[in-house]
């Protein structure tokens, strides 16, 4: 086989291989969305974060505005402190309510922002305490069962 044909095939092979890698990075992976522009960091304190994971989404009105970057336990208050990286394009009022929601019945958990009306916005590095914890299914069920039991006791 002549040298030029060989080079052509190898060039084709390398180009297709790199194309596949690009496909994996952009279409399969999150390279396109993860490193877009500047971010700022805030943290939020929760009683219970349920099954929230690092790299979980932060959504406001359903739109992804950031990612969870770190989860720690505060050894003083025994609350979970979640660090969030928020897209610098989005500023939220200081009285924004932070909740932990679940996508679907069994889906993964994410952080939800419910924007308030305060004219001032969060400063980078702020610690938010106005939060609502994850709903733990067992607690919900046991609350319901105890209430039911108490009602039945009352009837007797």
């Amino acid at each position, binding site marked *: 086989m002549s*040298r030029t044909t060989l080079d052509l095939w190898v060039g084709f092979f390398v180009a297709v291989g790199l194309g596949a890698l690009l496909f994996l990075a952009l279409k399969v*992976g999150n390279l396109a969305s993860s490193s877009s522009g500047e971010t700022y960091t805030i943290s939020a304190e929760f009683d219970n974060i349920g099954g929230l994971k690092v790299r979980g*989404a932060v959504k406001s009105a359903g739109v992804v505005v950031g990612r969870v970057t770190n989860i720690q336990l505060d050894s003083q208050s025994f609350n979970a402190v979640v660090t969030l990286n928020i897209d610098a394009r989005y500023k939220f009022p200081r009285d924004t309510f932070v909740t932990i929601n679940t996508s679907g019945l069994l889906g993964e958990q994410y952080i939800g922002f419910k924007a308030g009306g305060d004219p001032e916005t969060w400063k980078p590095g702020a610690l938010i305490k106005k939060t609502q914890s994850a709903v733990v299914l067992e607690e919900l069920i046991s609350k319901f069962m105890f209430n039911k039991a108490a009602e039945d006791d009352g009837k007797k």
Partner: protein
Amino acid sequence: MDNGLTRVLRQLGAQFSSRIWRLGYASRFFLAIMLHSGTSLRRIHLTIREVYFTGVLSLIIILVSGLFVGMVLGLQGYDTLARYGSTEALGVLVALSLVRELGPVVSALLFASRAGSAITAEIGMMKATEQLSAMEMMAVDPIARVVAPRFWGGVISMPLLAALFSAMGVFGGYLVGVQLIGVDEGSFWSQMQASVDFREDVLNGVIKSFVFGIIVSWVAVFEGYDAEPTAEGVSGATTRTVVTSSLAILAADFILTAFMFTGT
């Protein structure tokens, strides 16, 4: 003292020490390849030729197997996920299992049997027909001229083949999951993108396939160079290449996975 027990023990010891001796020889051989790699990079066309023989000629088998592995993952994954009512996660399942494990490992196994065995047979035959000795007579170093280009050709081809395998597999999963079964296309791709991280998953997969490329190429050139210069010796060396490199790939995969994907 020459009773049955000592004879058995001596045989065991001889086998054990010859294995270790071979491992040491293989390591020194690896070092020699590294030291003589300059030639294969300076005369890049030698390496390009090997990329053609190991990479381009493996394209068909890699692409077709990738497609079918992805399609099977789509079918099996759908069947399992349907029991939990979360079929939208099919994209995540297909992409993560391909990018992290199946892509690097299966393509490395195919690569070992498709290209590794060919390298061993070629170098072994060159040795059997005394071409390597003839080169040495002409003051051409066979490690620099024959072994190092084949080694680097394999190391370059392997990550590209693994990436093609994974991409083809994701496409196969898409064909079966979305086009055939009817999983929602939007959630198939968006959930995939939400949970496949470029650095954690894709890049670690590339590192894996790079390591496997080194293992397969190393074993292949070593077995070829070390083959007994007979027809039987070459066939035995070719078999050993496939067996040894497959086992080494699986063992290395476990070790790499333990380091890469545990913790957080």
